[in-house]
């Protein structure tokens, strides 16, 4: 039993924290995501130079990184490329991504179809000559990509150049992770190996990791506010009705952290419990992040309700993550199947 990150992983975390605080601090995010294109395209090369898109990184390494990019609400296609499309990459794509020359997202959901990452029945088709036709919705950060991994009828994965698709922005409450509708009209494509099944567990672990970062960051704001704001002559953190809300949020985030690390390890090692571990981690971590944001909005009072404050952006990311892929109820139904039968 060894539940510790390696010294290298601890160093990776510290380096990521420092880099993000210096280059992409959270308080700079609103100006970026409220404008166009909604992210800083030159950041992509920097991430590649740091080695964050290196194909040799393990899932536990990426778990460390996504907790930090989640806490920073780093805008851009890092999640789409590394947490979603990643398992579909062949060697050629891995090299391009690793060099910072390629950004990719995953196009799976369609109107009127389940939005989880295990569905195979789609109306998007691929012709014998490899041309893809159909419409995908809720594609994350599509406008920031060079290519899309498209799930077609039957569950096969195809690679389409974003330039060959029609990409329309959908008004998304989480401005830092926008969703798009993408149509393909006889768009040329090439086949990819792998399937949604390879993508799902990894995506759930990294969504959980991001949620840990979001929850932690919200909690830090709540603690800072409760430690300085005074009412009736006392700092409000001394009132237990206030402090208890922060304690409960802390407990939820820390317990979910244990599950997330367990899930990451299980997927990385191909452990038999990987599927239920991912369901537990993703449901618990995203729920904890949502709860943490809600408690902190309450602790901040009116300020927590303002557009000006950063908190609503963390809250919307938490909601994004909770809704993404399989939602909490669906994940618990999956767990029930495993533990009850």
């Amino acid at each position: 039993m060894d539940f510790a990150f390696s010294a290298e992983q601890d160093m990776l975390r510290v380096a990521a924290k420092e880099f993000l605080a210096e280059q992409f601090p959270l308080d700079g995010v609103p100006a970026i995501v409220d404008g166009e294109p909604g992210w800083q395209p030159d950041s992509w090369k920097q991430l590649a130079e740091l080695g964050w898109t290196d194909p040799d990184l393990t899932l536990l390494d990426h778990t460390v990184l996504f907790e930090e990019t989640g806490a920073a609400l780093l805008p851009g296609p890092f999640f789409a490329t590394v947490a979603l499309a990643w398992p579909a990459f062949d060697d050629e794509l891995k090299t391009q991504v690793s060099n910072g020359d390629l950004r990719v997202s995953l196009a799976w959901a369609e109107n009127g179809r389940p939005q989880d990452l295990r569905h195979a029945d789609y109306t998007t088709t691929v012709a014998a000559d490899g041309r893809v036709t159909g419409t995908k919705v809720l594609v994350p950060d599509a406008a920031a990509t060079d290519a899309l991994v498209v799930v077609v009828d039957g569950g096969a994965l195809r690679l389409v150049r974003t330039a060959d698709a029609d990409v329309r922005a959908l008004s998304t409450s989480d401005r830092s992770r926008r969703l798009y509708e993408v149509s393909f009209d006889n768009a040329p494509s090439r086949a990819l190996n792998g399937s949604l099944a390879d993508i799902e567990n990894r995506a759930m672990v990294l969504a959980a990791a991001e949620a840990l970062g979001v929850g932690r960051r919200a909690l830090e704001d709540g603690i800072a506010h409760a430690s300085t704001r005074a009412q009736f002559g006392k700092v409000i953190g001394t009132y237990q009705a206030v402090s208890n809300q922060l304690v409960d949020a802390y407990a939820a985030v820390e317990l979910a952290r244990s599950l997330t690390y367990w899930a990451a390890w299980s997927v990385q090692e191909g452990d038999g419990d990987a599927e239920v571990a991912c369901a537990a981690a993703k449901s618990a971590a995203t729920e904890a992040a949502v709860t943490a944001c809600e408690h902190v909005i309450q602790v901040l009072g009116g300020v927590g309700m303002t557009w000006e404050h950063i908190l609503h952006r963390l809250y919307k990311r938490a909601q994004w993550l909770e809704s993404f892929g399989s939602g909490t109820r669906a994940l618990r139904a999956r767990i029930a199947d495993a533990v009850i039968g």
Partner: protein
Amino acid sequence: MDFRDTAEEAAFRAKLRDWYAGNFDAEKMPAAGRPDVGFLREWSRRLYDGGYIGLTWPKEYGGQGLSPSYQAIYFEEMVRAQAPEHIGVIGLNMAGPTIIAWGTHEQKERHLAKLLSGEEIWCQGFSEPGSGSDLAGARTTAVLDGDHWVVNGQKVWSSYAHIADWCILVVRTDASAEKHAGLSYLLVDMHSPGVEVRPLKQITGDPEFNEIFFTDVRVPKESILGKPGDGWKVAMTTLLHERGTMAFALVAQLRQHFTRLVELARQPAPDGSVPANDPVVRDAIAREWVELQSLAFTNYRTLTTLLTKGQPGPESSVVKLVWSEANQRLTKLARSLQGLSGMLDDEGGVWDGYWQYRQLRSRGNTIEAGTSEILRNIVAERVLGLPRSR
């Protein structure tokens, strides 16, 4: 990071599993899940003779000198066998570790082996009618008279006192000192003249905890842990262990409850319905499983931090808090699956009233060993760094 057993751990686990298979039969457990003292004493002795008690304690005092990861395996296998715990929970989790930390060689020689074997049972004399959460307000006194401390006062909510041989007792030895500095920590023979135990019937109907009255009880001068005035520091060692080592036992118990909850849900309820077919019940059970796993893996995290850094990480502070509420929800869910039949609490009830006892007992979980209110304050101040509320 690696959650697999090492080769040594795997060998220990296999041996222990075999041992349970040869020594324990769940069918022969007393019904209704109420503690049966005679049965538990005998069972505790058998565990001790098997070499499975005091796994992490020093060998020279009857322990096995193993790393805490073996204790974790012990609890996992205990749950797997659906076997009960050793009867001496106060001794094993509180008195013993405190004696190891603070005791003289003579005290360790005198107490530890008998505590491990279950031959001597311990109770805790901390709470008083006027000071529950506020331990430093204790008013039971001990005055030195020649070679003895003379103890007078009253303790309350003391589990196992009615069957205990020894008591870890917090007393005031210096009335003029600041309230924390005036405390001392005694080891008291419960068979001494002047000790009177009055059982308090709990909401379960069982007299599990007690009042203890001390009237001119003479305690040998050397039966003190630390020096006079060290009582607060020594008591903190006890509480640290109550909230640390015990965490594995608590989660093990929760897993036993969870296993039985699933078993219950799969059976037809008294009204003929099968709860496991109800999506609302399935959702609730899945939620409890997630909570259970999160507690179990948080304990493993704590264990790793303990092994590598010498002390548990801050996340360990929430385990008892979250566990207590989880156990309350889980047992409540189990009782609710039985409809009005859930009011039948003995023979004639489902499993002879197993869940009725467990559910009522669980209400104490958020009160004993630090109320949830106190635990939240501790997390707020010591972990989150919020300003002190008192």
